[in-house]
């Protein structure tokens, strides 16, 4: 296992800069996810770590070793692909043992290790079968066993669950996490699925247009998004246009939509226009006219209500016609279309972001 460092790495395909001077440090044994929409540079980053792509600038380090110009077959990596990439003409045993054989490990040792790995991924007894005889989930387990066989210094996974259906994807998330923790293997995981990223990762790097927008734990990303893009990409969020007009200790005062707001720890914001961001589940519905004691309040009218079992999602029209989404309990008596209500939320449950 190794730590992985990208120092000022730029990746280009021809004239297109897919990755723009990225700095990234992945600790030994850490599970780090690169999260972002397609074309954000997450796969490029993974391929740079793997060595399939050489950076046009910057360095790639495993521990303190510079591997920038080392070809992928000498980097001691393990890689799991979205389409599994199992060798169709080889048995499962030969697939899993492939890397060991390339490293000159003896036949008996390979057999023992393959048995051990198939036990690890909970697929004992499939040694003599071929990939075509396994289901999608089973193939992905084999791919995982093959990738960690040698064992690698870093495990790279490129949307490994993308081809599976939802139920299987959730089951496989648990499996991947269990195996990653058992082996304590440094892992870089690429996905565009924020739920997957939040379930699995120690830290998540949210990427956009060839840059890392924010690198943080799932909790921090969700509660303290640093940019509008991150706030929008990870979970649902409302943006209210406001203007910062004063400070109170560590908090900021802002006005917008004909209302005054207070944002905890907002003192770092300069005066001027920005966005107040607040998650739908942080908003409480209260009857119109309820005094706003010790929290932010905004008047509006419910225009649409959608029931989805564990919660009710209301669309609220507030001053200026801005739609605000509120998530409340399925039994909330106020959640009826047409009701005039007051939205309330705590000072520390919202944040101020640049309107970019």
């Amino acid at each position, binding site marked *: 296992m190794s730590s992985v460092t990208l120092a000022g790495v730029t990746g280009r395909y021809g004239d297109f800069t897919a990755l723009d001077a990225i700095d990234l440090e992945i600790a030994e044994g850490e599970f780090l996810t690169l999260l972002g929409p397609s074309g954000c540079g997450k796969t490029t980053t993974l391929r740079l770590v793997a060595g399939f792509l050489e950076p046009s600038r910057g360095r790639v380090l495993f521990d303190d070793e510079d591997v920038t110009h080392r070809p992928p077959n000498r980097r001691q990596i393990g890689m799991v692909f979205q389409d599994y*990439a199992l060798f169709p003409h080889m048995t499962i045993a030969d697939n899993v043992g492939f890397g060991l054989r390339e490293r000159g490990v003896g036949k008996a040792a390979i057999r023992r290790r393959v048995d051990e790995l198939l036990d690890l991924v909970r697929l004992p007894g499939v040694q003599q079968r071929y990939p075509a005889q396994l289901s999608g989930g089973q193939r992905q387990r084999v791919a995982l066993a093959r*990738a960690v066989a040698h064992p690698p210094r870093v495990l790279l996974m490129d949307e490994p669950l993308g081809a599976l259906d939802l139920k299987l994807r959730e089951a496989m998330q648990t499996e991947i996490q269990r195996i990653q923790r058992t082996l304590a293997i440094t892992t870089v995981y690429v996905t565009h699925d924020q739920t997957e990223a939040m379930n699995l990762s120690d830290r998540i790097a949210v990427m956009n247009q060839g840059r890392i927008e924010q690198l943080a734990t799932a909790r921090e990303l969700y509660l303290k998004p640093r940019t509008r893009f991150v706030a929008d990409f990870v979970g649902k969020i409302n943006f209210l246009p406001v203007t910062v007009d004063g400070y109170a200790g560590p908090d900021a005062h802002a006005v917008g939509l004909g209302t005054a707001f207070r944002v905890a720890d907002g003192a770092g914001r300069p005066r001027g226009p920005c966005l107040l961001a607040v998650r739908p589940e942080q908003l409480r519905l209260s009857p119109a006219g309820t005094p706003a004691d010790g929290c932010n309040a905004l008047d509006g009218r419910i225009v649409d209500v959608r029931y989805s079992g564990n919660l009710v999602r209301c669309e609220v029209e507030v001053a200026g016609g801005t739609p605000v989404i509120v998530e409340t309990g399925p039994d909330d008596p106020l959640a009826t279309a047409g009701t005039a209500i007051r939205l309330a939320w705590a000072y520390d449950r919202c944040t101020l972001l640049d309107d970019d």
Partner: protein
Amino acid sequence: MNGRRLPRLLWRAVVAAFVAAFYVFLFAPLVVVVGASFDGGEHAFLNFPPRHLSLAWYLKIPGRYFETLWVSLQLGVVAAACSGVLGVMAALALARGRLPGAGLMAALFRAPLQIPVIVTGFAFLQLFYLASAAGGVPLVGSFAGLAIAHVFITLPYVIGTTAAILQRVNPSLEEAAISLGATRWRTFRRVTLPAILPGVYAGALYAFIVSFGDVPVSMFLAGSRYTTFPVEMFYGMELNFDPAILAMSTLILVGSFAAIWAVQRFLGLNTLLGTGAGS
């Protein structure tokens, strides 16, 4: 119920008749050749159906037919093998390499299919004359000369079949092998080659068939020492036709069917695809 079954039966009968007609169209000429080869009459005509059943003409097949057959078989194997190796290399470079002008090169590699073979034959004859004038290399009428020309006309078949299958081989298979520590050569040997092998075999088989059946190119390049079997047959038909040619053709036919059966039996393309499912 009968009212519904009848049209279906009728339809089946039409299809059966069409299929039968098709097979007659395909096999009738062969039946005539085979049948006539068993006619024992003294006259050197084509008699079908045979009037005097006899193997007489089989015993009168001239030795030069067997000699040239041996030349053609060798030539076919050499052409198929060389085209196989070169074709795989070319297909890999075109499909996987980062070559500037790969499209133009692909078109060039297809060119031998678009040039009339008679022109190809003439061009090689001129080229070989030039070569022997310049360096004293006697290529006209030699096995090497024939082999070079046959590789030229058969190469597109191997490139075509190999490139077609290579396009369907998932590039992440190769990346997976490399990520597991395999060198480029080992990746080719253990992953790419097994995946494209059916295409290579199919292409090499085409190459052999094209080489074995070629008259126009070989006619220009064959000499007194090295003549191919189809050229020899062609001259035989032109100059002194006798039913021995029919007898020889029948033998070739039997040999071809045996070869096709063997290919299906031992190298069947399904098993070559090698997923092993169901095996």
